[in-house]
């Protein structure tokens, strides 16, 4: 089909819809004006109708109501006419007609469109309701009047109802009898039994009777109604009875909503229609009883947001039925949709409502905004898949992860090249009109994300789009982004994660959130003044004065992407809102080193997302950057200060991003503190939020229960570990986490360290740690040492190391031994605190002299120290530095450290290796680039270990087995080989045997690698044999053994064959 034409048609269609809506609104406005007489309203409708039809210039309308006809002057009947009946209580009382005075091209119904049919029906229905409302109102008013004067009865009403709406009368009678029963009236109970299913204890229904309950005929019930009201009249005052009737009739008008909501088959379209109707009724003064209102809320929450009881328990308190009206107007869904919004959207919507309500009590919460958002419901993706016959892609999650890898680019390609169903296109187009030409972010809002406690964050894509140019370009860009986010469900990372978490079979649907990007245009860029994430629980405390509940904010200039992810080469500003004056970085050196150096922005010209050097941006646009004087500090040699509001030349001088002005001179910290406090209190759970600030307002972008990366969840503390297997315990300043499978312990003995008498040796200890950091398996060793690691100034206070000398450890432990009568302060890793945070290296302080603490010095001092073996140059320091190879000293066991901040407890003990969540070295790498994931090198290392373990040294003449290169250095990817060095001392025949044996391994591992990763490598094992002579001369690969940097790592040989043989 011609693309231009279809677009033209689309735009034409949309214009029509807009006209129709406009018409409907005008009419509803007329109807809500209860002071106008019916005649005027009718004339108003007649005039409002023509502009809503396709050909207004030839369009006329008339209303026939009872005996009156309302029509404009010069109205003439023509053959091109459509009509709709006006009914009240099933009785036709008139009709509304629209006709064209001249012939027009034929459409769905003569010259009329099918939408126009719907419109005229809606108008007729609305009008009918209005008339009914008016009638009842006048009856009531008349009644009240009579009552006052003559004290006559409400019987008149019953009579009226009996004639106009007998069903309503029965419903009201039922309510009255129930009410009377609850008030404890015996007579009423009797009536109730006759009336219908009664819920008293004596009820037949509850006696598990086998007889079907005898329903009564309508006429019986009607006469019973009068009895009921007689009884009521005897016990209640006139006023009471009248008020009840009034209330119930009113409430009954919301019955349509009950019907729609009770029916699980109602589509979103129907719900939306019902809500719309409710919205208008509410404006006309519809009041609901509290239980009914709440049941509506819950039903809507379940249908649109989440069926998690935890969620609706909170949400029902804050989200009102009418709030959905606004929401549903910004929802895009397929015809007959049963979808939901998804976790992210629901969470944000709820948070917004909570804050809105709380703002009445707490002024600092006023003006907290959320960006304009449109939603595609969760079944949109299935609709998209069905529309394009892509059903087979759903099977993707059951495929081998290697295949998922291989096929993912294809999935993305197919999705991006598949058209969207017209109703979605139409919705997106409306959304774009409503947004205008502002940058947007397309975010996933998965149903999996609202499961409490599951951190599914960042697994699916979020895409920024510039949304610039013609409508056509913008629509194309938007659909492209939605398709790409859809495709990300089938990416290897989420699929792998779901397999890991046992969520493979969970029915995954993904909603989409299309959000206006908060920010300002600065030159050719668009970005918020600043953004960040905040946690109500602080898991990375840099001072013992900061408590967990003081919270944590990670702030960055520009888009918040840099705050969400841990970065390897940049740092966000960290603030604990409960203790904003205690900064993670205090000296000028630290402030500079750990300040943000880059900013994420949207380039409106190239329409791309970019990371810029912030200093370059400032030079170009410093003065246009909103709030810049609150974000920067001026650096003048040894002095750092806030810039003056005027006269600061951002083109000259040195600036550091510190957020000093924001923190100390604006209410920002108080604001975020209150938000965290309110939301975590209402959620009854710690929460985390994402936010952005455009320099004027605070925007909440996301809110959810605080999630923990897998490795920083609170770990359960086992209580049954025998003391001799416990290495240490701790009870102060504990954070959360699990550090499993530690193979090496590096322990700097505090006593021995303090006894070192010469400066060079003190320095050397730091250097040894630096070398061990390179040699030991990455993230599988821990560092334990006295006082303050990385201490500058006085070296005696702690081992002098730089961050690069410890950056491969999985944990940094500081030991505070009691000295005479005081225990020294520990550093909390402050010297490289932010590096530790970004790399997720855990920190733990130990106080061995505290009561009830285990500190197993016997283990640390008496286990075999391998330092002299691996760094012979530093053998003289082996009194001070112990390096314990746990598995080889303890029959394959490893060290595990479990930390639990809630209980303020931590324990390290010996145990078998576990598959329980392993420490991920770098979260960001894992999500962005699967090839850098931990799994490749870990798997390769295990392969090498098992080859070594199964190698018969006597049979093959092997003396040693080493692994080096990417496998040892933890950098291996899916296509890396495994570099192995074998110290061979056998005969030529043995050599041949050995190589044949290894070839077998090679073939099988290469194949396994292929099925795991989809990458085909012919020789996974890269074997190098070296002889005694090579080692003596340190020729070729032999130099790798015992090399100071990047040394080959020895593996235990033959352990799987005969444990007794391995005596090292």
């Amino acid at each position, binding site marked *: 089909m011609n693309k231009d034409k279809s677009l033209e048609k689309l735009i034409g269609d949309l214009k029509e819809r807009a006209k129709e809506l406009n018409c409907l609104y005008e009419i509803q406005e007329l109807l809500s004006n209860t002071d106008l007489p019916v005649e005027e309203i009718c004339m108003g409708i007649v005039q409002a109708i023509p502009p809503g039809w396709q050909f207004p210039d030839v369009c006329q309308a008339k209303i026939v109501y009872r005996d009156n006809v309302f029509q404009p002057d010069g109205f003439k009947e023509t053959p091109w006419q459509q009509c709709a009946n006006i009914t009240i209580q099933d009785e036709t009382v008139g009709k509304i007609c629209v006709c064209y005075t001249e012939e027009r091209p034929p459409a769905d119904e003569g010259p009329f469109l099918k939408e126009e049919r719907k419109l005229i029906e809606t108008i007729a229905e609305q009008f009918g309701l209005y008339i009914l409302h008016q009638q009842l109102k006048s009856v009531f008013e008349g009644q009240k009047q009579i009552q006052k004067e003559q004290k006559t009865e409400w019987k008149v009403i019953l009579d009226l109802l009996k004639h106009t709406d007998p069903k309503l009368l029965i419903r009201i009678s039922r309510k009255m009898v129930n009410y009377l029963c609850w008030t404890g009236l015996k007579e009423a109970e009797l009536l109730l039994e006759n009336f219908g299913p009664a819920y008293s204890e004596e009820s037949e229904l509850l006696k598990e009777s086998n007889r079907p309950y005898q329903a009564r005929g309508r006429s019986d019930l009607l006469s019973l109604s009068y009895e009921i009201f007689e009884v009521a009249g005897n016990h209640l005052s006139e006023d009471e009875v009248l008020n009840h009737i009034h209330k119930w009739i009113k409430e009954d008008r919301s019955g349509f909503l009950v019907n729609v909501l009770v029916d699980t088959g109602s589509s979103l379209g129907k719900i939306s229609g019902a809500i719309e109707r409710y919205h208008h009724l509410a404006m006309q003064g519809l009041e609901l009883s509290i239980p009914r209102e709440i049941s509506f809320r819950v039903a809507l929450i379940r249908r649109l947001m989440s069926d998690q009881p935890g969620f609706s328990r909170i949400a029902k308190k804050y989200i009102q039925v009418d709030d959905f009206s606004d929401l549903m107007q910004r929802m895009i869904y397929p015809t007959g949709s049963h979808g939901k919004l998804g976790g992210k959207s629901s969470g944000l919507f709820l948070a917004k409502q909570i804050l809105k309500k709380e703002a009445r009590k707490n002024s600092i919460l006023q003006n907290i905004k959320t960006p304009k958002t449109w939603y595609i419901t969760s079944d949109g993706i299935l609709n998209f898949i069905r529309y394009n016959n892509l059903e087979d892609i759903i099977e993707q999650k059951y495929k081998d992860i290697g295949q998922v890898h291989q096929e993912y680019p294809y999935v993305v390609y197919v999705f991006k090249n598949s058209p969207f169903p017209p109703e979605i296109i139409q919705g997106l187009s409306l959304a774009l009109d409503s947004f205008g030409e502002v940058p947007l972010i397309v975010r996933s809002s998965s149903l999996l994300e609202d499961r409490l406690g599951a951190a599914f964050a960042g697994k699916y894509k979020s895409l920024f789009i510039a949304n610039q140019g013609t409508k056509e370009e913008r629509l194309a860009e938007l659909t492209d982004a939605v398709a790409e986010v859809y495709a990300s469900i089938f990416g290897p990372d989420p699929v792998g994660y779901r397999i890991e978490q046992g969520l493979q079979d969970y029915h995954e649907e993904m909603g989409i959130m299309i959000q206006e990007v908060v920010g300002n245009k600065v030159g050719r860029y668009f970005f918020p003044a600043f953004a960040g994430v905040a946690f109500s629980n602080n898991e990375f405390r840099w001072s013992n004065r900061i408590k967990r509940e003081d919270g944590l904010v990670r702030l960055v200039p520009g888009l918040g992407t840099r705050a969400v992810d841990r970065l390897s080469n940049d740092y966000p500003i960290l603030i604990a809102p409960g203790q904003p*004056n205690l*900064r993670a970085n205090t000296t000028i050196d630290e402030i500079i080193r750990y300040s943000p*150096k880059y900013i994420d922005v949207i380039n409106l010209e190239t329409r791309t997302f970019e990371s810029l050097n912030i200093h370059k941006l400032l030079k170009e646009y410093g003065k246009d950057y909103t709030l810049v004087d609150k974000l920067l500090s001026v650096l003048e*040699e*040894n002095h750092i*200060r806030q810039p003056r509001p005027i006269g600061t030349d951002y083109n000259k001088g040195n600036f550091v991003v510190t957020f000093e002005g924001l923190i100390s001179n604006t209410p920002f910290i108080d604001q975020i503190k209150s938000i965290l406090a309110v939301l975590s209190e209402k959620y009854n759970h710690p929460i985390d939020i994402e936010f952005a600030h455009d320099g004027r307002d605070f925007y909440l972008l996301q809110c959810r229960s605080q999630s923990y990366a897998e490795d920083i969840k609170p770990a359960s503390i086992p209580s049954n570990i025998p003391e001799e297997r416990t290495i240490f315990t701790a009870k102060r300043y504990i954070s959360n986490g699990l550090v499993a499978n530690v193979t090496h312990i590096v322990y700097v003995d505090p006593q021995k360290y303090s006894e*070192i008498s010469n400066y060079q040796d003190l320095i050397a200890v730091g250097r040894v740690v630096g070398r061990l950091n390179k040699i030991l398996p990455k993230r599988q060793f821990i560092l334990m040492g006295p006082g303050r690691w990385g201490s500058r100034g006085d070296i005696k206070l702690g081992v002098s190391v730089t961050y690069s000398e410890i950056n491969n450890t999985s944990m940094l432990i500081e030991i505070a031994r009691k000295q005479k009568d005081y225990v020294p302060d520990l*550093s909390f890793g*402050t010297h490289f605190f932010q590096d530790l945070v970004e790399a997720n290296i855990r920190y733990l302080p130990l106080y061995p002299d505290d009561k009830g603490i285990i500190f197993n010095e016997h283990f640390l001092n008496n286990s075999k120290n391998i330092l002299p073996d691996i760094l012979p140059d530093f053998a003289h320091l082996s009194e001070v530095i112990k390096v314990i190879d746990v598995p080889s000293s303890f029959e394959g066991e490893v060290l595990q450290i479990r930390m639990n901040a809630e209980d303020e407890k931590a324990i390290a003990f010996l145990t078998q290796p576990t598959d329980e969540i392993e420490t991920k070295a770098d979260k960001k790498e894992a999500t962005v680039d699967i090839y850098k994931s931990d799994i490749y090198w870990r798997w390769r290392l295990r392969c090498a270990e098992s080859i070594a373990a199964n190698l018969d040294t006597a049979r093959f003449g092997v003396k040693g087995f080493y692994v080096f290169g990417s496998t040892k250095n933890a950098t291996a990817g899916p296509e890396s080989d495994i570099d192995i060095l074998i110290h061979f001392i056998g005969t030529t025949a043995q050599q041949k045997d050995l190589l044949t044996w290894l070839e077998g391994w090679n073939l099988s591992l290469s194949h396994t690698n292929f099925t795991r990763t989809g990458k085909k490598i012919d020789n996974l094992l890269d074997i190098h044999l070296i002889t005694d002579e090579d080692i003596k001369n340190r020729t070729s690969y032999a130099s790798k053994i015992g090399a100071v940097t990047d040394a080959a790592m020895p593996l235990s040989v033959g352990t799987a064959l005969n444990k007794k043989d391995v005596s090292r």
Partner: protein
Amino acid sequence: MKATSYNPFETAQKQFDRTADLLQLNQATRDLLRNPIREYHFSIPVRMDNGKTKIFRGFRVQHNDARGPSKGGIRFHPQETIDTVRALAMWMTWKTAVAEIPLGGGKGGVICDPHNLSKNEQEQICRGWVRQIVKNVGPYEDVPAPDVMTSAQHMLWMLDEYETIVGEKRPGFITGKPVGLGGSLGRKEATGYGVMITVREALKELNIEPKNTSASFQGFGNVARYAIELYQQMGGTVVCVSCWDQKDQTSYAYRKKEGIDLQELLSITDPFGGIDKAQAEALGYEVLPGDAWLEQDVDILVPAALENQITQENVNKVSGRVKIIAEGANGPTTDEADQYINERKIFIIPDLLANAGGVTCSYFEQVQSNMNYFWEKDEVLGKLDVKMTSAFISVSDFAKMNNLDMRSAAYVISVDRVAQACQDRGWV
């Protein structure tokens, strides 16, 4: 191994003792100079942000003020030991003496960790420190300066408290103030220029034309940058600089054999001294491992980054062509390496002398503050040149006269000057 732990003060005393032997100082002089002349220990009560009062330990050590008011930094350190402070105060005495500026040596501080303190609490500590010792410090008694974990901001709080108590403006009480509030111009340049002035004088002695020489630098901070600037003005060729790469967590050496372009490199350097590796490569620089700065075939090596950089292990990689090593950093050469360098007859300009430009500029700041007068940068740098040149010549002459290496000469001459002043004053 006897279980005696490393004590920096004892190490400093031993070094002094050897020099005292050489100078045949009498017992009284030894006793006087082995220990600080005065020490103050005091408590500083501080009302913390939470309303509770906490007591901090503060101190000030004045090692010797025979040649003029004590001069030395104030450190904020959580586990400061008095012996470290004593050693550092003694070092300051020698440093001012070798630079021939009329000041003595001191050091002080407060036991605290700024990471556990708010700005307001730090201000209260600074003011509290001054209140406790106001009678024993001042422009003509003892002049503090910034040090570990203290900055210009701390100095301003202290100055303000001091001036409030004494009731008049005395900006000479403290140095390290920002320009515009009693600070001196030329501070940024002073240390680096100072290093290069001594190199220039050393070249003169060796009869080498600067324009025929080449040099390699470790570090690209303020010291190295300004040293390079002056060296290039002298006509020398800088072949290599090394610096830390924050992203890669390692250091790299950037080499261009025909000579680096300082402005070009600065344009691709972040404000914190890191050179952009990719851009440097694009500009035609060879990127070598960080240690390569030391192995270059040049005439002059300038370690201007960290301590303990030239060690037993790498000193043998120093090219045979190297004639001068100028220690821009503090303690960049280990004792073992030092011996080897002496054997190789490489002319070493020791840190005590080479980086004395910094303390000299602090002295200039104090002089300007005391007379409430402000020098232009040229004037500061001109005076710096005069001071550094004469300091170098004195040390060098002294070395030749007494057949000492430069390091020993610098140390001995400074002890000699201080001993002389004590004697002249009739103290010993």
